[in-house]
């Protein structure tokens, strides 16, 4: 495929390469493009709350038999545990994150709103950003300036990041108004906030790594803020090599780990119940604390069959 054909294939349908319109209101000055992004996010949040959700299929009420077990033995290890770090790690994993919690096929019936999809959309956008970033990384930092295909991949990277930050913002708003930190879920909230902050830094290093006018100007402007706080002594935004390494190696690893921990906390603690939930809809405290576990009747019967 010739360069010309690629160029016409990947050229923008809407030309944004002209000075933007700016909205000036008092001391507020905002570009039309940024304003549209903010309006879209607010609209998404309102629609997600307001629109009726899909007709959800309720599962048959799970019959459960309550059995009392010691908290340290989950029944996961059929044989006598050998001991050691590996066994303990497995036991901890099975205690706090058994397979049906890790990959659930049911959710509480109250999890029925479009607002819940923004968490997984954020992760989807992160995956697209990483994949498009990997292609850019394979070809090197200058490729996208020279190749129309490279420019297209860069555009995908940019828009997946805009989606990532946007979906994460809506997710954050939703979780705030749901007070999703309730019921000992404060670590879930905190890891989410840390992920948001790390994402802002990751985006910043991305802008520094573009090797164009944006990188120059953002580096020049950012240096004063970073220097004033002493951060500039460690992270020099004018050093392209450092910014690129941070952007494609260190910070993404930290971000993926934090997002992973965040998701794990969601799975361990479960989705927060509604405010003013009826106590009758919740397990007894002893069951929730793990002193008593509920085992579905089918599984008990299966275990009894095996034992016979």
């Amino acid at each position, binding site marked *: 495929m010739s360069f010309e054909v690629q160029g016409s294939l*990947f050229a923008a*349908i*809407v030309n944004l390469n*002209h000075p933007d*319109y700016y909205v000036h209101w008092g001391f507020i000055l*905002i*570009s039309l493009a*940024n304003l*549209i*992004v903010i309006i879209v996010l607010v609209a998404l949040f309102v629609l997600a709350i307001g629109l009726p959700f899909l007709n959800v299929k309720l*599962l048959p009420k799970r019959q459960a038999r309550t059995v009392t077990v010691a908290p340290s033995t989950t029944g996961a290890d059929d044989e006598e545990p050998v001991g050691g770090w590996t066994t303990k790690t497995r036991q901890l994993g099975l205690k706090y994150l058994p397979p049906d919690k890790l990959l*659930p*096929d049911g*959710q*509480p019936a109250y999890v*029925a709103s479009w607002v819940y*999809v923004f968490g*997984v*959309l954020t992760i*989807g*956008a992160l995956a697209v950003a990483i994949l498009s970033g990997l292609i850019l990384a394979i070809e090197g930092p200058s490729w*996208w300036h020279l190749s129309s295909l490279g*420019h*297209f991949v860069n*555009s*995908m990277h*940019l828009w*997946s990041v805009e989606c990532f*930050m946007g979906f994460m913002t809506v997710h954050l708003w939703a979780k*705030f*108004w749901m*007070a999703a*930190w*309730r019921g*000992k879920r404060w670590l879930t*909230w905190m890891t989410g*906030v*840390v992920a948001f902050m790390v994402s802002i830094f990751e985006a*910043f290093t991305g802008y520094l790594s573009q090797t164009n*006018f*944006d990188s*120059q100007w953002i580096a*020049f*402007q950012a240096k*004063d803020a970073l220097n*004033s706080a*002493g951060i*500039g*002594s460690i992270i*020099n935004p*004018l050093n*392209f090599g*450092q910014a690129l390494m941070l952007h494609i190696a260190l910070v993404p690893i930290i971000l993926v780990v934090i997002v992973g921990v965040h998701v794990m906390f969601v799975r361990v603690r479960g989705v927060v119940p*509604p*405010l003013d939930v009826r106590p009758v809809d*919740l*397990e007894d*405290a002893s*069951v*929730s604390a793990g002193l008593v576990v509920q085992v579905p009747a089918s599984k008990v019967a299966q275990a009894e069959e095996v034992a016979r």
Partner: protein
Amino acid sequence: MNSWKADEALYARHWKGRERHYDIVKEASIAFLVVLLLSVGLAFLFSSPDTPSVTIQAWSKAQPAGFVDVALSELNDTSQSATYGQPYNTGSGSVQFLGSISIQRALGVRYPLNTAQDFVLNPLQTLPSEPQLASALRTYQQATVRQQDRWVNTYSKTVSKEKLSSSFVPRFVQGSGPVGELMTGLLAMAQSGALDAQLVSHSTFYTTDYTKPILFIGDSFAAQGNASYWGKIVASEHLTGSQWGVMNETGSWPGQPWLWLYTMWYQISPMSTSGNADILVISIMTVLTVALLLVPVIPGLRRIPERVPVYRLIWRNYYRQNQE
């Protein structure tokens, strides 16, 4: 409203009501596909910005007198970079304080910068030997600092009368010693593109550090503002600090709207006029970030959502079914 402790105990209990079917793998796959299609669609529709870098070559060709004016300030150590302070040197021009504390100063000089040597004299020494230039360099370096300052100041007075875009660069000005010769050589070097390469490559073959050329170009914006070559571009693109530039992007693309709060503080007094604006804004944002992080444990703040009935809409099906 129950006590926080009682509510915590209640909300920590597991759900035992009805469950709905939920396919986490399917949901994640659909979300990935939706964003993939969205990103591809938006990339086709709007592409992405790529404004070429500004070079010293382009700057010195567009504004020869402006370039020489800045080069002179590098030579007599009066530019923003020369007087910046840590982490570049021991100046105090851009060192910021929070009260009487300066973390910036405490961490010392990390990337040593001597603008006269790094931006002017060392690059000139790399030029092929020209008797006039070599003699001028020797004369300048052997003179006392006081003499050097006198020469540069005398030359500056002549250059500062010119428009920034003027190509008039005198080789000799009465009372300026060898400075005219040095500036003629440096301008020719800049306009040929050799200075761009020299400032990044210095003494090594490979390089990834653009600290020196960006600081050099940046000094033109610091000294000449929106009239400078760089300043004209950034002001027309609404990228300066007073234009909420941190959020903005070149062209008509969205930038980083998530930085709206950070940028907003710079527009408000006392930050809008303070020499310590950056450290003040960073301090405010640090406090706000910690507050956001600690919402679950800050009394009052953690119960705000209970007072605003957005949650009634989110869980309206649950509340309706309970009423029924």
